[in-house]
């Protein structure tokens, strides 16, 4: 593994994630018939948060929340192959890393629960509970889609699935359509946009788990959110859309995929936690079951 390659991957993920955040705000603003902030607004926000001169913390465990989030995002990023057949971005990979990814992606919010519990703010505690409950919701169709993929192609590593796409010549989006539909529906919950943004919205419980974090803590949380976004989008592109050979193609594919939750989010109201879990265990799980049936029978 190349240390320089890992650092470059991290910088690319950070920059692309932040840009997508700023572009989201611009697109949402244009839909609402106003001019929005410039596309580099998230960078300015991050730098302002970084340059706060006092930091108020509530003990040692309070530092663990943002640290665990960042660790989880970076680990997820390093296991996702960013470009196919490229020496720069050849990070970690082993057989069975798809199952490993399913576990690692839940590690971050658990760490944040520790940090939020240390602050003693009841808003954070309730927000963390809601976040973890919602995660129980969307994990079901997501895991079902991945399991059906693993059964269909007899491999548990991401690079194996990408190789299968190259061999058959068609993207997994077309040869396992039910898995793709179930995974996209689960993606709506992963990115925490409307209608599933009850966890971190500013009007709900004073923004839930983030409520006692300001200044540099918030900077780490925002950056880890952007890196995690990029990692998830790249994982989807690798699994379903055939990977990408160069950076421009990757950017186009991830952006088009990212527009699905963003555009759906601008026109939806918010679900309560039990409504969102009930939705996730309805149609998306049905499509996941169909995907598993298709993988086993055909």
């Amino acid at each position: 593994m190349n240390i320089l390659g890992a650092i470059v991957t991290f910088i690319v993920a950070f920059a692309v994630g932040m840009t997508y955040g700023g572009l989201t705000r611009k697109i949402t603003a244009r839909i609402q018939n106003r001019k929005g902030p410039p596309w580099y607004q998230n960078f300015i926000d991050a730098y302002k948060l970084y340059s706060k001169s006092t930091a108020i913390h509530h003990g040692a465990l309070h530092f663990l929340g943002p640290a665990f989030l960042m660790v989880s995002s970076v680990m997820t990023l390093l296991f996702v192959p960013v470009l196919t057949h490229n020496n720069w971005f050849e990070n970690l990979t082993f057989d069975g890393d798809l199952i490993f990814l399913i576990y690692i992606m839940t590690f971050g919010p658990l760490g944040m629960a520790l940090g939020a519990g240390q602050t003693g703010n009841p808003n954070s505690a309730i927000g963390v509970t809601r976040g973890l409950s919602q995660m129980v919701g969307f994990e079901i169709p997501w895991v079902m889609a991945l399991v059906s993929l693993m059964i269909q192609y007899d491999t548990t590593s991401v690079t194996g699935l990408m190789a299968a796409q190259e061999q058959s010549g068609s993207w997994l989006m077309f040869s396992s359509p039910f898995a793709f539909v179930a995974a996209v529906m689960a993606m709506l919950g992963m990115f925490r946009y409307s209608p599933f943004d009850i966890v971190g919205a500013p009007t709900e419980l004073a923004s839930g788990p983030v409520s006692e974090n300001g200044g540099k803590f918030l900077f780490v949380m925002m950056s880890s959110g952007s890196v995690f976004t990029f990692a998830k989008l790249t994982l989807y592109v690798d699994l379903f859309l055939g990977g990408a050979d160069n950076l421009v193609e990757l950017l186009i594919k991830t952006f088009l995929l990212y527009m699905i939750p963003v555009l759906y989010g601008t026109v939806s109201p918010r679900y309560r936690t039990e409504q969102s879990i009930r939705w996730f265990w309805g149609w998306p799980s049905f499509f996941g079951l169909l995907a598993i049936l298709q993988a086993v029978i055909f």
Partner: protein
Amino acid sequence: MINDKNSQKIVDIIQNWARKHSIWVLAYGTGCGAIEIPPTMTSRYDAERLGVRGAATPRQADVLLITGYLTVKTLKRVIRVYEQMQDPKYVIGFGSCTINGGMYYDSYNTIKVLDKYLPVDVYINGCMPRPEAVLSGFAQLQKRIAEGRATGARHYKENLEWYRANQKKIIPNWIMPEYNW
């Protein structure tokens, strides 16, 4: 951050540029002037193109907007909120009630001059100021940040005894700690 007399180092210039283009306003309406905040933030007089955004808690906010009159009861809570915010922080006084008491100049329960209890950076006059006036107030705050003169928080820390003496004279039942982290 003014370093030597009238010049600023390059780091300060970049920092002030970032701070002035991303101002997070605490979503707390202390008086009747808070009714002019939603029109400023929504589609017609868009404040988000200046980078102004709502923040949910004092830990995440930069600016405390004192919109209108402050009763003695609210002043106790506002002091607590102000001291929980993190540096650098600014206070904007909205409306004429913060300047000289405004329409409630002879009321038995509102404070007349905000400057003696909290350090104020920018006043916006009007009763209530229209969204255009609010946006021009934010532009004035941006100019002060860029010049490095928005040092209300430092002034508060250095003259804490004076501010505390004024606050304790008005608030008879001071049951809060000496400084609210």
